[in-house]
């Protein structure tokens, strides 16, 4: 369907010449070519006729009273709409270089020097009309393309931005150099309450650079939702982009996971400028520097890839940027650079609005300079992410007696188990698998969120303290926590034997059910008595980096029981519909 160029069967021509005789001669020739012709005898009148009739072709004499041909041509070219090239030909008897040059300078598309034969004239008209038609076609195509691109962009930002988590609290600047941004900003909530954030910058900008965005967004969201760890998500995204994209198209990306539960930020920077952790006073507490080539370059992440762990305070802010901000140029060709960025970010943190302050400052700096690259920033508050978890105690409408009897006397509605040992235990995270089973059998529901937390805490305890033999004493301080995390990665990598066995049994009761979780590990056993003893002593301390896991599980479950010298843990989680 042609939306823009209305096809008129009869083309209109305007002849501007002070000689009535000339006008007549040209009119006859044009009519023979199928044109309807209007005439004007001076430049000013010619311009007025042009405005009135919007012709498809203008023939212009040069020497005329009131307004000469050059001036009239300039006026007409200034009026003609961008999308319709109205070809203008000068007709003159001045056979000089000067006349030719001035004609083209004035906006003429050609010049015909008298005397000429009717056939030469008609040939010239045909050739100029051909160019004009081509111009029209290009313009139509360009408009169609623009429309398609706008639609695609709308869909894309619908898929990407609209599904972001907490758009009200996480500030995002997204200023594309072209219609399509090669930058992508994603935020998603993990089942354990961690907030995962990614800022990506695909090579180049425009449509070509945004084709990887949709699969990337899907992977990031789906894996976060299923509870995969940040490094697992990054590994998968890298692999996916390597498979999908050509060699020269890749993704510089910064990843951050804010864990309120661990009072930590986990970060990974693959090819983006430094990310910044700011205190509430705007001081830089940490720089998240790039430690890995962009994603999609290598088939696998480099073997020493690991997340950085940084302790955070609730009032801190983590900021990720793409190179568009620091490389933005002003009229003098200077770049915005890191120094200005840091100063502006500090001001933004103090004023409580990093995005607004940054955007204003960068735009003031660049003034009217065209934007060369996509500009983006994500500003993530480190606190305020505590969630309301639904625990067993909230379900008091199921009589204990009924629950107990059900579990002892009947077969479970279903039973699921998985035993992982050796290297596979070091590589695989069974919790997303367990959750995906539950979601498949029982459907998605909010109370499974809490079960996820219970499973994660208990499994991590068995793996860390049981199989890997890590002492939680390490987690006593903020620095120790990072140390603990590093040691854990190291031991996981070297894991050769040891096992964790995970069992889930689901018993149904009217209006709800009970999930029995049983986890057995190959470790020395968890000393629960000692744990309770120490907890009484510790409770006076304000900030604890360990032991919160068990507290949480206790809150969420209606029973928690350690057996076989602490190598087996059994917990019961109750839900109602």
């Amino acid at each position, binding site marked *: 369907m042609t939306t823009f160029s209305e096809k008129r069967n009869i083309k209109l021509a305007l002849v501007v010449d002070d000689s009535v005789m000339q006008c007549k001669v040209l009119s006859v020739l044009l009519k023979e070519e199928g044109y309807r012709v209007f005439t004007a005898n001076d430049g000013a009148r010619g311009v007025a006729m042009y405005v009135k009739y919007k012709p498809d072709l203008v023939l212009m004499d040069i020497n005329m009273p009131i307004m000469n041909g050059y001036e009239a041509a300039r006026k007409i070219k200034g009026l003609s709409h961008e999308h319709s090239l109205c070809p203008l030909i000068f007709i003159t008897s001045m056979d000089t270089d000067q006349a030719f040059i001035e004609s083209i300078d004035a906006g003429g598309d050609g010049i015909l020097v008298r005397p000429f034969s009717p056939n030469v004239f008609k040939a010239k008209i045909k050739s100029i009309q051909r160019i004009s038609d081509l111009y029209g076609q290009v313009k139509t195509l360009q408009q169609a393309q623009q429309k398609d691109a706008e639609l695609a962009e709308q869909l894309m930002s619908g898929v990407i931005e609209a599904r972001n988590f907490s758009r009200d609290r996480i500030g995002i600047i997204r200023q594309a150099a072209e219609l399509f941004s090669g930058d992508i900003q994603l935020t998603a909530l993990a089942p354990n309450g961690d907030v995962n954030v990614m800022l990506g*910058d695909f*090579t*180049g900008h425009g449509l070509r650079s945004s084709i990887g965005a949709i699969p990337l967004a899907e992977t990031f969201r789906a894996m976060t939702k299923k509870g995969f760890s940040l490094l697992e998500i990054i590994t998968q995204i890298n692999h996916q982009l390597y498979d999908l994209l050509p*060699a*020269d*198209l*890749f993704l*510089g990306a910064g990843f951050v996971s804010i864990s309120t539960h661990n009072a930590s930020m986990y970060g990974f920077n*693959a*090819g*983006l*400028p430094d990310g910044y952790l700011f205190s509430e006073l705007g001081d830089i507490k940490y720089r998240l520097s*790039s*430690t*890995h*080539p*962009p994603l999609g*370059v*290598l088939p696998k992440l*480099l073997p020493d890839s690991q997340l950085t762990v940084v302790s955070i305070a609730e009032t801190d802010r983590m900021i990720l940027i793409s*190179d568009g901000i620091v490389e933005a140029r002003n009229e003098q060709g200077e770049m915005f650079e890191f120094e200005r960025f840091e100063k502006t970010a500090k001001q933004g943190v103090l004023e409580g609005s990093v995005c607004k302050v940054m955007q204003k400052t960068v735009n003031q700096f660049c003034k009217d300079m065209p934007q060369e*690259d996509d500009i983006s920033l994500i500003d993530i508050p480190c606190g305020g992410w505590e969630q309301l978890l639904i625990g067993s105690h909230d379900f008091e409408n199921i009589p204990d007696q009924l629950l107990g009897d059900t579990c002892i006397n009947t077969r479970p509605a279903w039973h699921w188990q998985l035993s992982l040992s050796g290297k596979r235990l070091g590589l695989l995270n069974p919790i997303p698998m367990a959750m995906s089973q539950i979601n498949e059998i029982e459907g998605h529901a909010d109370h499974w969120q809490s079960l996820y937390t219970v499973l994660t805490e208990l499994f991590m305890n068995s793996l860390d303290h049981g199989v890997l033999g890590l002492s939680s004493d390490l987690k006593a301080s903020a620095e120790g926590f990072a140390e603990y995390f590093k040691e854990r990665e190291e031991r996981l990598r070297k894991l050769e034997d040891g096992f964790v066995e995970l069992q889930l049994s689901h018993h149904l009761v009217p209006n709800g059910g009970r999930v029995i979780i049983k986890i057995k590990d190959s470790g020395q056993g968890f000393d629960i008595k000692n744990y309770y003893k120490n907890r009484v002593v510790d409770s006076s301390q304000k900030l604890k980096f360990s032991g919160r896991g068990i507290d949480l599980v206790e809150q969420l479950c209606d029973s928690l029981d350690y057996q076989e010298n602490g190598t087996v843990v059994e917990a019961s989680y109750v839900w109602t519909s």
Partner: protein
Amino acid sequence: MSVKKQVSDNGENIEISIDGRFDFSLHQHFRDSYANCKEKGQVFTINLATASYMDSSALGMILLLKDHAESHSGKVVIVKPSESVNKILEIAQFHRLLTIER
């Protein structure tokens, strides 16, 4: 802005020098400079001494050259990046992928 190519007498070393801004506008020239070099074991040296700026599409072009070189058992070396260009290579951690001589 230009791409200059120099081949050593024995044909084993190809030096590609970039002048000015190293960005997408050099795409075709850069590709042309090595597309016909298909002998085994050639060393491609990208000389960035006079490159004033480099963007991510330039990084992409270098990766394409790396693919080309490696498919002919050759290699790519980047030499003399300026401070600002080196910063970009550093952010992209390109020293983990190929040799960079300052």
